[in-house]
């Protein structure tokens, strides 16, 4: 039974020290990533992980379309219509990285879905997707690492629509944030959405990469 942290009856921290104690297992917890790593580990060799994660709907699926889910009754008519979802793989020529405009590249939408509603935000955040080619140096080791989900800066994605035949996988890179105006992003080409489990893996990695705690840092902050 999951803990309902909105339920104020059980324990409300009485001071800042207690507040920290309540948050320490939640704010910087890496349990989710450990679960993913253990799952990948028991699958066997890298090619077995490739086969599982490359199945249709395993990590990625066709873009989820608002009109379709509305028609199926999966979203209420009074909820905000969406154009994009968090984790969608898109291509756009209107995104910038350190002042340079990115061209001919694919991205994953890092901004939460609820912030992708038109006019709700001015800007959105993207993460770049880099192709893995069959002739890349050390391609086997690269794929081996990615499919163990042990990296703190990368996530494996299968080949995507429009990928040339020599691309045998993709790498969602968390090292470096790409920025885009929300209005421009909403006109991007949608290539794929993440499956439910793909979205959970993505969310776990984003959270862990942005906020993870080392013992030293905890010790330092609690002592100075």
């Amino acid at each position: 039974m999951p803990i309902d942290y909105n339920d104020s009856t059980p324990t409300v921290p009485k001071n800042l020290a207690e507040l920290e104690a309540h948050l320490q297992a939640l704010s910087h917890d890496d349990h989710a990533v450990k679960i993913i790593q253990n799952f990948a580990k028991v699958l066997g060799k890298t090619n077995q992980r490739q086969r599982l994660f490359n199945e249709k709907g395993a990590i990625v699926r066709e873009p989820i379309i608002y009109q379709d889910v509305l028609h199926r009754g999966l979203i209420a008519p009074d909820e905000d219509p969406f154009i994009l979802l968090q984790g969608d793989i898109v291509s756009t020529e209107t995104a910038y990285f350190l002042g340079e405009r990115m061209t001919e590249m694919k991205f994953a939408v890092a901004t939460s879905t609820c912030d992708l509603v038109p006019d709700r935000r001015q800007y959105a955040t993207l993460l770049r997707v880099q192709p893995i080619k069959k002739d890349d140096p050390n391609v086997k080791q690269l794929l081996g690492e990615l499919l163990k989900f042990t990296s703190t800066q990368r996530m494996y994605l299968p080949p995507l629509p429009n990928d040339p035949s020599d691309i045998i996988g993709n790498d969602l890179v968390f090292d470096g944030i790409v920025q885009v105006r929300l209005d421009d992003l909403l006109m991007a080409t949608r290539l794929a959405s993440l499956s439910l489990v793909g979205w959970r893996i993505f969310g776990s990695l984003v959270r862990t990469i942005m906020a993870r705690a080392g013992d030293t840092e905890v010790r330092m902050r609690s002592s100075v």
Partner: protein
Amino acid sequence: MPTIVNDSTPFDLKVGSKWLSFEKFRTEGAKSLDSIKNGTIAILHTKTGQYRIIEEQDFQRMLGLARDVDRLRRGLRVLSRTVRVVQKHPDTDTINLLIEAVATLGTLPDLPTRDRFEPLIPESLDADIDDEVDVDPDLVARPLDLKSATLED
């Protein structure tokens, strides 16, 4: 070092097919859109107005260039204001300001773009020699391959 390239290929639009009614467009079907690519756009006349049809990739490129035009316009505005100040008060300070403004705009109109990052390299040097990895594209499943997708005409 990252590879930095300038997106210098000219972007030209050419008029292609033209339909004088929606019905005419409908009866010709999706096949008639085949020629709309690589800068060729089509014109559709209907009772509600005239519309241009542009291929997705061309649209994305045009939108990207429009963003650069916005960037450029902001820079030019600063430059033209600076020139006016220099005309009004031609002294060392204002001339230096003009030089600085021109230098800031850099190599106009070649705004920096980038179409790739450094190649990916493994994070660890400890290779697992017993590992088995599919690198033959014929063995790698492509879950969203358009060839296997069902698309409506």
